[in-house]
């Protein structure tokens, strides 16, 4: 039976998984960022299906509006070096690790499928107002007010830290260029 909700879920699944694959597989990081954007929009659609309206809005605002844009800014600051050709050093170990993880993931999924079997868990009908900004906001500002304040402090520290780390020293670029000219790629770490 194909209801509107099931069709919407299928669409969101398609967006999410294709976007995820595109994110990790794209050679050009700009395309990867676009894949991340698509995956994030798919997840936001799923939040709507799970009656989490506030989170769906936050997902679009914070991820699509801030995080992906930040990625794009950094990719453009770095320029052509952002999509360098990969080399084959240590490839065996990486492929072995990824293959082992994929095997474990497939096994876990198979276990989930078998446990669920014929009787899938049907969701209960949501109570009125679930996931709206009023109800979630009331919980955040009463029961979870301390973590909320700590999250604000964390964001402040992150802003200051990001500025301090990204600023660098005035001579940095000159020194690294001299080193590069003198001793090549792998010699930069010496001295």
């Amino acid at each position, binding site marked *: 039976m194909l209801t509107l*909700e099931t069709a919407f879920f299928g669409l969101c699944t398609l967006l999410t998984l294709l976007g995820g694959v595109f*994110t990790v597989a794209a050679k050009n990081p700009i395309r990867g960022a676009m894949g991340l954007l698509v995956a994030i929009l798919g997840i936001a659609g799923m939040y709507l*299906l799970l*009656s989490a309206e506030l989170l769906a809005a*936050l997902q679009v605002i914070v991820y699509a509006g801030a995080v992906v844009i930040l990625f794009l800014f950094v990719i453009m600051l770095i320029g052509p070096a952002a999509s360098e050709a990969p080399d084959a050093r240590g490839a065996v170990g990486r492929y072995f690790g990824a293959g082992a993880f994929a095997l474990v993931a497939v096994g876990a999924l198979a276990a989930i499928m078998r446990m669920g079997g014929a009787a899938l868990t049907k969701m209960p009908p949501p109570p009125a107002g679930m996931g709206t900004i009023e109800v979630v906001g009331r919980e*955040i500002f009463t029961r979870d007010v301390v973590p909320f304040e700590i999250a604000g402090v964390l964001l402040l520290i992150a802003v200051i830290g990001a500025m301090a780390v*990204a600023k660098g020293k005035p001579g940095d670029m000159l020194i*690294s260029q001299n080193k590069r000219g003198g001793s090549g790629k792998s010699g930069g770490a010496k001295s």
Partner: protein
Amino acid sequence: MNQDLTAVPLEYFLTVAGVLFAIGAIGFLLRRNLLVLLMSIEVMLNAVNLTLVAFNRMHTENHSGQIFAFFIIVVAAAEAAIGLAIVLAFFRVRRTVRSDDADLLRN
């Protein structure tokens, strides 16, 4: 309008989240571009958020799952800012974003 918000079972959401997490983790293990590694981390965090919200939909007496996902979004935003700042600082020193070249501490 007749909305049926119980049409999609829990397992479907969990399966999508599991597959998405696996995609992110495999990307993290396989790629060596620092920017793509950070994006893979974001993909994994999103998958975890999806499971939290889906389980919250099963236990509707409060919004713990959604609020947890909210805090994860906050931490992910902070992590992206710091991570990209580190990538920029690294790029300034080594003129590359390959994770293999992050060997300044190797003897």
